[in-house]
């Protein structure tokens, strides 16, 4: 589309043009929505189309939801080789809830494995309508793209809004740019905005001067203003990230609107993890970095916490494990921090014997005394898969304490399974397991479904007899032994041999359930160190000194950063995939 509408020429074009973060391009996924304006001529009239490219992964549902709320129509892109995935259903549902005009499109029809006819049938069943209404395109060859643009112009309604009413614009995204300060993305609903105007944020009543306003096409281009229906950006020179809240309504100071637009639902974090700087001196930098990321990612929540092993850090809430991974990676890359993320945990509700209630987001806060009840969050999971894998998937769900709700055939060979599962069982490696056991064919979506009591215990890890709070986790009693053994043996592999023996123990309460030993290192000395070796040896020493900075001292034991994450993640690398 970018090429066909002429806003990006062939020379500038590259794959995933709008995915601006390195991390998105490396992983082939979209994390941040990107707005772009494109011109298109139909029947002699030129139209301006404002498009938003959104993520597809279940962790980023809120990001999709916000973008959809800013639109009149949605292009539902389905991979013609893979078919409908569980996330497709989730995003389709959101689009329908927003009363959007939906244009079903099958992409990647150039792939040899593409089955456009089959999936067009499935899509038609879902949305209603004829399989023929489903457009077939290839982003790679450009086939069908012009027809898609025509279709958008014909079927998506024009924006409705009152150009003469007091100005109201919805903030659907904002990002921090180190040169320009906060860049806020807006969708104009009523009225208009012009440069140099005084604008007001309706929630805080804060007034700023509009330094620049413009559209993205696909790079930022300043304009003389924005009117009804337009999507663009504004810059006020504000540096404080909290001044530009996603979901807020922008109006003008001169002619203030009285009613703000309906904001967005605040996303609720599902997974918590402690984030600590390896170098304690980086704590203020970590706080600044979190403040900045929070600006463009309303779903990120955090509050200060202290760990015996790790010092000062933040307990952060995430939408899911991919979200956690992305945020920690962005903190390290974009803010040049070295971090440790503790094993992810869900939120438990604990009732003590004395009737006291406790919400536990950090396993180390799990009470030691008598406990009457522990409740854990439950989700309703929807899994779509070819029918051949049903047995495997049922086995997997069973082993994760799942209860089947129902099973339904979607077509000849596609099945939808619905399960109730404890959230804690799916946040770590469920998705990776599901993918690998079904050769990548199965897809997953889930929604919260309340709390339920479970027989849950806290498993502690001890290094040299000292409990390391950062390694504690809450698991089902039946799995405590297997879990303790697995973590202890993983730590034995991940912690380098030290000058003394390091016993590793896993314990439930005072009972030791697993034990491993890291043997003392016997030999660590360079055999030959003569004239020519000295410079190299010193350079190596300097490098090793840097490496030591990435180690965390837990008591006398040096624990590498990776151990804190790897100890509790799955065996397979849990890298995200593009799921659209």
């Amino acid at each position, binding site marked *: 589309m970018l090429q066909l509408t002429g806003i990006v020429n062939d020379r500038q074009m590259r794959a995933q043009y709008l995915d601006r973060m390195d991390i998105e391009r490396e992983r082939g996924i979209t994390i941040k929505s990107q707005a772009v304006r494109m011109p298109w001529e139909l029947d002699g009239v030129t139209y301006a189309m404002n498009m938003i490219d959104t993520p597809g992964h279940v962790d980023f549902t809120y990001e999709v939801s916000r973008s959809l709320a800013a639109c009149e129509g949605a292009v539902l892109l389905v991979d013609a080789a893979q078919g409908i995935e569980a996330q497709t259903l989730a995003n389709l549902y959101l689009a329908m809830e927003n009363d959007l005009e939906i244009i079903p499109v099958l992409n990647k029809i150039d792939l040899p494995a593409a089955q456009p006819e089959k999936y067009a049938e499935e899509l038609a069943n879902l949305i209603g309508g004829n399989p023929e209404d489903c457009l077939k395109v290839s982003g790679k060859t450009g086939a069908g793209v012009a027809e898609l643009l025509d279709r958008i112009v014909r079927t998506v309604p024009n924006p409705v809004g009152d150009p003469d009413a007091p100005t109201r614009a919805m903030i659907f995204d904002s990002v921090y740019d180190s040169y320009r300060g906060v860049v806020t993305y807006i969708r104009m609903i009523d009225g208009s905005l012009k440069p140099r105007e005084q604008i007001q944020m309706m929630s805080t009543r804060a007034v700023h001067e509009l330094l620049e306003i413009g559209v993205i096409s696909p790079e930022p281009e300043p304009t003389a203003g924005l009117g009804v229906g337009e999507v663009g950006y504004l810059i006020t020179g504000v540096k404080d990230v909290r001044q530009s809240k996603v979901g807020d309504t922008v109006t003008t100071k001169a002619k203030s609107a009285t009613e703000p637009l309906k904001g967005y639902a605040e996303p609720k974090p599902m997974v918590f993890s402690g984030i600590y700087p390896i170098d304690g001196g980086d704590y203020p930098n970590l706080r600044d970095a979190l403040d900045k990321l929070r600006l463009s990612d309303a779903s990120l929540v955090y509050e200060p916490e202290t760990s015996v092993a790790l010092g000062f850090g933040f307990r952060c809430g995430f939408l899911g494990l991919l979200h956690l991974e992305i945020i920690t990676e962005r903190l390290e890359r974009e803010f040049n921090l070295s971090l440790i993320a503790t094993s992810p945990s869900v939120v438990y509700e604990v009732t003590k014997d004395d009737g006291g209630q406790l919400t536990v987001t950090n396993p180390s806060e799990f009470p030691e005394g008598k406990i009457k009840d522990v409740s854990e969050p439950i989700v309703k999971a929807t899994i779509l898969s070819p029918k051949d894998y049903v047995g495997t998937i049922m086995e997997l769900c069973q082993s994760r304490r799942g209860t089947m709700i129902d099973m339904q055939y979607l077509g000849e060979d596609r099945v939808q399974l619905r399960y109730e599962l404890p959230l804690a069982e799916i946040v770590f490696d469920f998705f990776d397991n599901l993918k690998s056991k079904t050769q990548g064919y199965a897809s997953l979506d889930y929604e919260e479904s309340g709390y339920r009591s479970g027989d849950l215990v806290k498993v502690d890890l001890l290094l040299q007899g000292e409990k390391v709070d950062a390694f504690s986790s809450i698991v089902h009693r039946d799995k405590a032994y297997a879990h303790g053994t697995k973590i202890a043996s993983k730590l034995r592999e991940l912690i380098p041999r030290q000058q003394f023996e390091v016993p590793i123990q896993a314990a439930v309460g005072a009972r030791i359930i697993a034990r491993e030993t890291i043997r003392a290192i*016997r*030999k660590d000395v360079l055999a030959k160190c003569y004239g020519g070796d000295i410079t190299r040896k010193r350079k190596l020493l300097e490098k090793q000194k840097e490496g030591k900075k990435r180690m965390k001292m837990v008591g006398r034991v040096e624990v590498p950063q990776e151990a804190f994450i790897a100890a509790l993640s799955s065996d397979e690398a849990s890298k995200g995939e593009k799921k659209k």
Partner: protein
Amino acid sequence: MPSTLPVGLKWPEDNRIPALDAIERSFHAYVHIPFCVARCGYCDFNTYTSDELNGDMRSGFDAHLCKEIARSARVLSDSGYPAREISTVFFGGGTPSLFTPAQFKNVLDALGSEFGFVQEVEITTEANPESTSAEFLEGLWALGVNRLSMGVQSFDSDVLKVLDRSHSKDHVAPLVKAARDLGYEVSIDLIYGAPGESLESWRNSVERALELGTDHISAYSLIVEPGTKLERLVRSGKLPAVDEDLNAQKYELATELFDLAGLSWYEVSNWGKPSRHNSAYWASQDWWGYGPGAHSHLAGNRFWNLKHPTSYQSAIATGLAVTGREELTHSQQLEEQLMLGLRTSTGVPRSLVRQLDVQPEKVAMAIANGNLEFKGENIVVTKAGRLVVDAMVLDFLS
């Protein structure tokens, strides 16, 4: 150590590298002979076979070394160093015994006429049993060479095969006898930890080496260096990986046997009457390294030559062959002193540890663990500590 040379500063255009401190140092010469008949499977040293060099460069190579010697004398005097006689010379390689006595003579004459030698000069050459003869030893003795470092590596034929060494183990004793009869100080080089070598095989090699009655033995643990044939064989599983725990046992066994034989330990891998040349490295004395890839140190300046004999040869035709250089900061010098000094039986002065701001608790912990001890004003590694010197130094400096 990996053989890649570090990147560094350029050689100054005025050819001057003034001293970076006022410490008085002795002056030494290292001469690199970059030739071998065949490359051994474990070796990543800067050496070449005649096949690799596309023809014979060896016969005329002494002339290039002599040019470098003359130029080095000029740099030293222009940079303001006092005139110093050479305390020790060391011919290393490669295989120095592939040079003829006449070539040795040219190099030694050049060193003698540019610098002169101290009265008690120690002149060592490395030699491989397979390319050394009694005549060769006589020829060198006549030139003043008085120390022989013999690359024996092992007395186990299986181990020699794994190491790709072509000499027969029975070849060594007559050569050692000939050398000792002439008056050489003789050192035997051993390597332990070759894939497949048992503790018993190693014990046998040590005992056979001791039977030769030499004044000095070096014992090095084999390092599987990246890019060597040995590394490929280990990686592909054709040879077992080196077992560092077993190596630790081998080191301890050797220590015990050398002690019993009266060879006293003085550096991580060295026992017996100390090599004055090598000791100069560990005490950060001054030396010029001549030949391809050789490293030099002059009062805090470290620099090194082009690695390949062909590029070295063409550079030397018009000037020096230095390709990289660094000027050590004061704290880098101190760190080097710790890194090198702790390897030796002299150890390091406590004042050095204080100057480096090492946490006293760390030193105390090493003493408590039995890895360090006091010797007067110095701290020295214990027998147990010798095996973990690098870990200790890293711990102290971080």
